[in-house]
């Protein structure tokens, strides 16, 4: 939430120093991620036991329930048992994909999450691909003519977008396009027949949420690409390339950009946490039926079992993505391996 565009790569000086072998490196990272996952599971359990008051009161707020029903419900949800046993049941359930039952819909939380995964992946995937392309292109252009008009305006725009709450940007786009694009959902109420018309219908609904998310996340790619290209630009091999008479364009495309790409590649995974936050608000604005909207609805309820499940899933996937970033960084950048 508060990571600024430039400090995500701030690694400890002492982390790189020792030349550990690949096996130790991988084992260390995987072990760390596993510990984090255990933390998430534990946090997911104990956070929701902090609630002041009885969860049954929240659940039955709108329905008159007699004591017998309450006792039955308490037993069915396992709330009458000691906390440590509840925790064991909960972890056991998680391992078998059982996330409990929604207070509001009386449905298994696992099913509710499963049906929301694909819309989110579609939205996040499209936005990420477009953001990477746009960010890289702008970043390269800005760095190559550093300090020029293009660089200054683009950095300015990126900073302004960075200072904007994501949901506000979404609301602005909605109000600015007033009715040109659909304001809610993923498909029309009455979807057309045939695969191609249906795909077009979804794409039409996707436009605004995807644009909002894109505008929110491309800035980081641009700024990181810009700064890593700036770092490369002082390098000796570029002077050599120029000295042997290569055209400016070729120096950039063949020599500078490939090396500067590395930090950006891992950023795709590192940014996942930010993308997750983005989807919650963007999906809430556009009622896009994904995990973000599910989070929003369960917060508003509050539907605690659903919120608990979504929290574990979202936090868990961010941890996995960060692990991938760490591993990938070592694979793609030989310099990290050698040091």
């Amino acid at each position, binding site marked *: *939430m508060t990571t600024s565009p430039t400090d995500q790569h701030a690694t400890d000086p002492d982390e790189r120093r020792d030349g550990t072998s690949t096996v130790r490196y991988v084992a260390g990272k995987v072990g*760390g991620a596993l510990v984090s996952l255990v933390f998430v599971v534990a946090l997911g359990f104990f956070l929701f036991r902090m609630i002041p008051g009885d969860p049954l009161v929240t659940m039955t707020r709108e329905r008159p329930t007699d004591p017998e029903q309450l006792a039955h419900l308490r037993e069915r949800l396992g709330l009458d048992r000691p906390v440590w046993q509840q925790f064991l049941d909960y972890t056991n359930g998680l391992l078998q994909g059982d996330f409990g039952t929604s207070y509001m819909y009386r449905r298994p939380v696992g099913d509710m999450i499963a049906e929301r995964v694909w819309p989110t992946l579609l939205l996040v995937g499209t936005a990420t691909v477009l953001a990477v392309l746009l960010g890289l292109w702008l970043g390269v252009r800005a760095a190559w003519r550093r300090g020029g008009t293009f660089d200054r305006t683009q950095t300015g725009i990126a900073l302004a977008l960075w200072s904007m709450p994501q949901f506000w940007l979404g609301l602005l786009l909605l109000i600015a396009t007033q009715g040109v694009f659909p304001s809610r959902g993923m498909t029309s109420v009455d979807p057309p027949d045939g695969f191609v018309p249906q795909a077009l219908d979804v794409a039409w609904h996707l436009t605004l949420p995807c644009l909002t998310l894109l505008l929110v996340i491309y800035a980081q790619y641009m700024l990181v690409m810009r700064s890593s290209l700036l770092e490369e630009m002082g390098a000796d091999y570029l002077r050599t390339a120029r000295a042997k008479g290569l055209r400016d364009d070729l120096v950039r495309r063949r020599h500078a950009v490939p090396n500067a790409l590395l930090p950006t590649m891992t950023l795709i995974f590192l940014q996942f*946490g930010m993308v997750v936050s983005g989807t919650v608000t963007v999906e809430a604005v556009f009622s896009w039926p994904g995990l973000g909207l599910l989070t929003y609805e369960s917060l508003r309820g509050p539907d*605690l079992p659903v919120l608990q499940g979504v929290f574990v899933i979202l936090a868990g996937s961010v941890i996995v993505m960060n692990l991938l970033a760490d591993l990938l960084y070592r694979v793609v950048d030989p310099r990290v391996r050698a040091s």
Partner: protein
Amino acid sequence: MSAPVWQRRRAAAADVWRQFRTNRGALFGAAFIALLVLFSLIAPLLIDRDGLEVVTAAGGSLEPPSGEYWLGTDESGRSVMLLTLWGARVSLLVGFAATLLSVVVGTLVGVVSAHFGGWISAVLMRITDFFLVLPALVLAAVLMAVLPKSMWTVIMAIGVTSWPTTARLVRAQTLSVESRPYIERSKALGGGHTHVIGKHVLPSVLPLVFANTTLVVGGSIIAESTLAFLGMSGPEISWGSMLDRANQSGAVTAGAWWYLLPPGIAIVLVVLSFTLVGRGLETVLNPRLKGER
């Protein structure tokens, strides 16, 4: 006890100010923030509270801007301009307070982990890494969902989810300071932990923390507005809660741009100001960035 030290520090501060002054964006940001803080402090003297209450507000529902209401009215007839001006108080207060909490925790964790090393450092860094990768907004929203909703829980939720970057920064800086010979000399002469940390480490780490702090304030203000938009805020009027109400009351479909624009623009201006100041300070204070800008 040591006047020359303070003389030197005053001179250094003057030097920082001279360099900072040359950055026009940062200077503009600093001026804007100063004016806004000043205004927020005296706002209760200037603004008639009756116009902020739903029951006593005089305007009609969602009226467009007019001579009487320069920025129109909200769904219950309150002046949007009045609400936006008043909202600055909560947004700034939450921004500053959450940042204070976050920076204090982050500095403490960073310094302790770098200074003591060993298993303390291992455990603290494990925890820091954990919080660093967690999606902070989701965690903060979950905290708000299980705690009673008030401005203070918002501050706490943002504070406890945003300290890890500060901790990392402070740790790296502390490590590099402590590897210098004068620290070894100080320890050899019998300087205890408190002496080394208080007299040597903190004075050289704090300037960088300060630059980082201004960046954190911007992030905290955005976080507050996002949480409020998700319905996770106290009853106070803030820019975020205005936007939440605008969204819930159908101002978007009604095309009520005057309700949506002012709080959002206010957030962007304030956050942009903090970001500009933070980047300006960073360029001056961080030797690695010298001459880069």
